[in-house]
Protein backbone atom coordinates (compact mmCIF):
# COMPACT_ATOMS: atom_id res chain seq x y z
CA UNK A 1 0.00 0.00 0.00
CA UNK A 2 1.38 3.41 -1.01
CA UNK A 3 2.51 5.67 1.80
CA UNK A 4 0.70 8.93 2.45
CA UNK A 5 2.55 12.08 1.24
CA UNK A 6 5.68 12.90 3.26
CA UNK A 7 4.31 16.36 4.06
CA UNK A 8 1.29 14.65 5.65
CA UNK A 9 3.41 12.16 7.55
CA UNK A 10 5.56 14.98 8.95
CA UNK A 11 2.58 16.71 10.51
CA UNK A 12 0.47 13.73 11.60
CA UNK A 13 1.47 11.17 14.25
CA UNK A 14 -0.41 8.36 15.92
CA UNK A 15 -0.60 7.20 19.53
CA UNK A 16 -0.36 3.58 20.62
CA UNK A 17 -4.09 3.49 21.34
CA UNK A 18 -4.97 4.79 17.87
CA UNK A 19 -2.71 2.22 16.20
CA UNK A 20 -4.25 -0.61 18.23
CA UNK A 21 -7.77 0.49 17.32
CA UNK A 22 -6.88 1.08 13.66
CA UNK A 23 -5.40 -2.41 13.37
CA UNK A 24 -8.74 -3.92 14.42
CA UNK A 25 -10.84 -2.03 11.85
CA UNK A 26 -12.32 -3.84 8.82
CA UNK A 27 -10.10 -3.50 5.74
CA UNK A 28 -12.58 -1.32 3.81
CA UNK A 29 -12.77 1.09 6.76
CA UNK A 30 -8.96 1.28 7.00
CA UNK A 31 -8.89 2.08 3.29
CA UNK A 32 -11.50 4.82 3.75
CA UNK A 33 -9.49 6.28 6.66
CA UNK A 34 -6.34 6.40 4.53
CA UNK A 35 -8.24 7.94 1.62
CA UNK A 36 -9.84 10.51 3.91
CA UNK A 37 -6.36 11.38 5.24
CA UNK A 38 -5.38 12.55 1.76
CA UNK A 39 -8.37 14.90 1.64
CA UNK A 40 -7.71 15.98 5.23
CA UNK A 41 -4.16 16.90 4.23
CA UNK A 42 -5.41 19.09 1.37
CA UNK A 43 -8.33 20.61 3.24
CA UNK A 44 -8.95 19.66 6.88
CA UNK A 45 -12.10 21.78 6.93
CA UNK A 46 -13.65 19.96 3.95
CA UNK A 47 -17.38 19.61 4.62
CA UNK A 48 -17.39 15.83 4.02
CA UNK A 49 -14.98 15.30 6.92
CA UNK A 50 -17.35 17.09 9.33
CA UNK A 51 -14.43 18.26 11.45
CA UNK A 52 -15.36 19.93 14.71
CA UNK A 53 -13.67 20.87 17.96
CA UNK A 54 -13.95 18.85 21.17
CA UNK A 55 -13.33 20.97 24.22
CA UNK A 56 -12.10 19.77 27.60
CA UNK A 57 -13.91 22.03 30.03
CA UNK A 58 -13.65 19.81 33.10
CA UNK A 59 -11.97 20.97 36.28
CA UNK A 60 -12.61 24.59 35.40
CA UNK A 61 -10.14 24.44 32.53
CA UNK A 62 -10.92 25.21 28.94
CA UNK A 63 -8.36 23.18 27.09
CA UNK A 64 -8.94 23.09 23.37
CA UNK A 65 -6.97 21.41 20.66
CA UNK A 66 -8.91 18.17 20.06
CA UNK A 67 -10.88 17.63 16.88
CA UNK A 68 -13.27 14.97 15.63
CA UNK A 69 -13.23 13.94 11.95
CA UNK A 70 -15.68 11.59 10.21
CA UNK A 71 -13.96 9.37 7.60
CA UNK A 72 -17.12 7.25 7.05
CA UNK A 73 -20.71 7.68 8.23
CA UNK A 74 -20.11 5.04 10.92
CA UNK A 75 -16.66 6.02 12.21
CA UNK A 76 -14.97 9.01 13.77
CA UNK A 77 -11.29 9.70 14.40
CA UNK A 78 -9.99 12.14 17.02
CA UNK A 79 -6.70 14.04 17.20
CA UNK A 80 -5.08 16.69 19.35
CA UNK A 81 -2.77 19.42 18.08
CA UNK A 82 0.57 19.45 19.94
CA UNK A 83 3.29 21.90 18.88
CA UNK A 84 1.64 22.18 15.47
CA UNK A 85 1.51 18.39 14.97
CA UNK A 86 -1.75 16.44 14.78
CA UNK A 87 -1.52 13.50 17.18
CA UNK A 88 -4.31 11.00 16.38
CA UNK A 89 -5.37 9.17 19.51
CA UNK A 90 -8.79 7.55 19.05
CA UNK A 91 -10.82 5.95 16.26
CA UNK A 92 -14.06 3.98 16.50
CA UNK A 93 -17.74 3.97 15.65
CA UNK A 94 -20.11 6.71 16.73
CA UNK A 95 -21.85 4.06 18.83
CA UNK A 96 -18.60 3.31 20.68
CA UNK A 97 -18.06 7.04 21.17
CA UNK A 98 -21.58 7.37 22.60
CA UNK A 99 -20.76 4.86 25.32
CA UNK A 100 -18.28 7.48 26.62
CA UNK A 101 -20.84 10.26 26.58
CA UNK A 102 -23.67 8.20 28.04
CA UNK A 103 -25.60 8.88 24.83
Amino acid sequence: MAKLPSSFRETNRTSRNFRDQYAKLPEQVRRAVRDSAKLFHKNPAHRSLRRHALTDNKRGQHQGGSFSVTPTAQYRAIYVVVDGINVWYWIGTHAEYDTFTGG
Partner: protein
Amino acid sequence: MTTGNLAFRNARQYMKSYSEESDVIQRHNEAMDCRNWEDVIHMAIDAFEWTLRADQSYRVSIYQGEEEDIAIEREIEGLFYRWMEVSARLEPHIQRQIEGGFKLDRLAEYRRCVTEIVAIVKSLREGDDQTLPDVLIQYRDAAIQEFHNGETTEFF
Protein backbone atom coordinates in the same frame (compact mmCIF):
# COMPACT_ATOMS: atom_id res chain seq x y z
CA MET B 1 -20.18 9.25 -8.78
CA THR B 2 -23.90 8.81 -9.35
CA THR B 3 -26.70 7.33 -7.30
CA GLY B 4 -27.02 4.69 -10.03
CA ASN B 5 -23.98 2.73 -8.89
CA LEU B 6 -24.32 -0.79 -7.47
CA ALA B 7 -24.09 0.15 -3.79
CA PHE B 8 -26.74 2.84 -4.17
CA ARG B 9 -29.08 0.65 -6.19
CA ASN B 10 -28.81 -2.10 -3.60
CA ALA B 11 -29.13 0.27 -0.63
CA ARG B 12 -32.29 1.73 -2.15
CA GLN B 13 -33.70 -1.68 -3.10
CA TYR B 14 -33.01 -3.34 0.26
CA MET B 15 -34.40 -0.33 2.11
CA LYS B 16 -37.56 -0.46 -0.02
CA SER B 17 -37.98 -4.20 0.63
CA TYR B 18 -37.34 -3.75 4.33
CA SER B 19 -39.85 -0.93 4.60
CA GLU B 20 -42.59 -2.62 2.51
CA GLU B 21 -42.22 -6.08 4.03
CA SER B 22 -42.21 -4.73 7.56
CA ASP B 23 -45.50 -2.93 6.75
CA VAL B 24 -47.07 -6.14 5.42
CA ILE B 25 -45.92 -8.20 8.34
CA GLN B 26 -47.27 -5.64 10.82
CA ARG B 27 -50.68 -5.64 9.14
CA HIS B 28 -50.87 -9.43 9.36
CA ASN B 29 -49.26 -9.63 12.73
CA GLU B 30 -51.23 -12.46 14.29
CA ALA B 31 -51.11 -14.76 11.28
CA MET B 32 -47.40 -14.44 10.75
CA ASP B 33 -44.95 -17.19 11.42
CA CYS B 34 -41.90 -16.13 13.41
CA ARG B 35 -39.77 -17.07 10.39
CA ASN B 36 -41.30 -14.07 8.59
CA TRP B 37 -40.01 -11.84 11.35
CA GLU B 38 -36.59 -13.39 10.95
CA ASP B 39 -36.71 -12.63 7.22
CA VAL B 40 -37.56 -9.00 7.97
CA ILE B 41 -34.66 -8.85 10.43
CA HIS B 42 -32.35 -10.21 7.73
CA MET B 43 -33.66 -7.54 5.32
CA ALA B 44 -32.95 -4.88 7.92
CA ILE B 45 -29.35 -6.07 8.29
CA ASP B 46 -28.89 -6.15 4.50
CA ALA B 47 -30.37 -2.65 4.13
CA PHE B 48 -28.02 -1.39 6.86
CA GLU B 49 -24.93 -2.97 5.26
CA TRP B 50 -25.75 -1.64 1.79
CA THR B 51 -26.43 1.86 3.09
CA LEU B 52 -22.98 1.86 4.72
CA ARG B 53 -21.49 0.66 1.44
CA ALA B 54 -23.29 3.42 -0.47
CA ASP B 55 -21.85 5.96 1.97
CA GLN B 56 -18.33 4.53 1.61
CA SER B 57 -18.64 4.42 -2.15
CA TYR B 58 -19.66 8.09 -2.24
CA ARG B 59 -16.92 9.11 0.18
CA VAL B 60 -14.21 7.31 -1.77
CA SER B 61 -15.22 9.33 -4.83
CA ILE B 62 -14.93 12.56 -2.80
CA TYR B 63 -11.59 11.51 -1.34
CA GLN B 64 -10.37 10.83 -4.88
CA GLY B 65 -11.16 14.39 -5.90
CA GLU B 66 -14.74 14.37 -7.20
CA GLU B 67 -17.05 17.25 -6.33
CA GLU B 68 -19.44 16.90 -3.43
CA ASP B 69 -23.05 16.22 -4.33
CA ILE B 70 -25.60 17.46 -1.81
CA ALA B 71 -28.35 15.34 -3.38
CA ILE B 72 -26.36 12.14 -2.80
CA GLU B 73 -25.53 13.13 0.77
CA ARG B 74 -29.20 13.83 1.47
CA GLU B 75 -30.20 10.49 0.00
CA ILE B 76 -27.71 8.62 2.21
CA GLU B 77 -28.87 10.50 5.29
CA GLY B 78 -32.46 9.80 4.25
CA LEU B 79 -31.72 6.07 4.12
CA PHE B 80 -30.32 6.15 7.64
CA TYR B 81 -33.37 8.07 8.94
CA ARG B 82 -35.77 5.77 7.08
CA TRP B 83 -34.09 2.65 8.49
CA MET B 84 -34.42 4.04 11.99
CA GLU B 85 -38.10 4.91 11.51
CA VAL B 86 -39.00 1.48 10.14
CA SER B 87 -37.12 -0.25 12.94
CA ALA B 88 -38.81 1.88 15.60
CA ARG B 89 -42.23 0.79 14.24
CA LEU B 90 -41.09 -2.82 14.15
CA GLU B 91 -39.70 -2.91 17.66
CA PRO B 92 -42.96 -3.62 19.59
CA HIS B 93 -43.69 -6.55 17.25
CA ILE B 94 -40.21 -8.00 17.70
CA GLN B 95 -40.59 -7.58 21.43
CA ARG B 96 -43.88 -9.51 21.29
CA GLN B 97 -42.15 -12.37 19.47
CA ILE B 98 -39.45 -12.52 22.12
CA GLU B 99 -42.02 -12.42 24.92
CA GLY B 100 -43.87 -15.23 23.11
CA GLY B 101 -40.76 -17.37 23.51
CA PHE B 102 -39.56 -17.25 19.89
CA LYS B 103 -35.82 -17.19 19.26
CA LEU B 104 -35.19 -14.86 16.35
CA ASP B 105 -32.17 -15.67 14.21
CA ARG B 106 -29.61 -12.82 13.96
CA LEU B 107 -31.45 -10.73 16.52
CA ALA B 108 -28.21 -9.67 18.27
CA GLU B 109 -26.78 -8.56 14.93
CA TYR B 110 -29.94 -6.58 14.21
CA ARG B 111 -29.71 -4.94 17.65
CA ARG B 112 -26.13 -3.88 16.88
CA CYS B 113 -27.38 -2.27 13.64
CA VAL B 114 -29.99 -0.34 15.62
CA THR B 115 -27.32 0.93 18.03
CA GLU B 116 -25.05 1.94 15.14
CA ILE B 117 -27.83 3.73 13.22
CA VAL B 118 -29.00 5.66 16.28
CA ALA B 119 -25.40 6.82 16.86
CA ILE B 120 -24.92 7.72 13.18
CA VAL B 121 -28.12 9.80 13.12
CA LYS B 122 -27.12 11.46 16.38
CA SER B 123 -23.72 12.33 14.89
CA LEU B 124 -25.44 13.93 11.88
CA ARG B 125 -27.19 16.32 14.26
CA GLU B 126 -24.03 17.04 16.26
CA GLY B 127 -23.15 20.70 16.67
CA ASP B 128 -19.72 22.30 16.54
CA ASP B 129 -19.04 22.83 20.20
CA GLN B 130 -18.77 19.38 21.80
CA THR B 131 -17.19 18.41 25.10
CA LEU B 132 -14.46 15.80 25.11
CA PRO B 133 -15.64 12.80 27.20
CA ASP B 134 -13.59 11.95 30.31
CA VAL B 135 -12.36 8.62 28.91
CA LEU B 136 -10.98 10.40 25.87
CA ILE B 137 -9.24 12.99 28.03
CA GLN B 138 -7.16 10.10 29.40
CA TYR B 139 -6.35 8.86 25.88
CA ARG B 140 -5.50 12.41 24.82
CA ASP B 141 -3.20 13.02 27.78
CA ALA B 142 -1.46 9.69 27.18
CA ALA B 143 -1.02 10.61 23.49
CA ILE B 144 0.50 13.99 24.39
CA GLN B 145 2.90 12.25 26.77
CA GLU B 146 3.85 9.72 24.08
CA PHE B 147 4.46 12.61 21.67
CA HIS B 148 6.82 14.36 24.08
CA ASN B 149 8.58 11.05 24.76
CA GLY B 150 9.09 10.49 21.03
CA GLU B 151 6.85 7.40 21.12
CA THR B 152 4.26 8.39 18.50
CA THR B 153 4.68 7.07 14.96
CA GLU B 154 3.80 8.24 11.48
CA PHE B 155 0.26 7.95 10.25
CA PHE B 156 -0.10 4.79 8.18
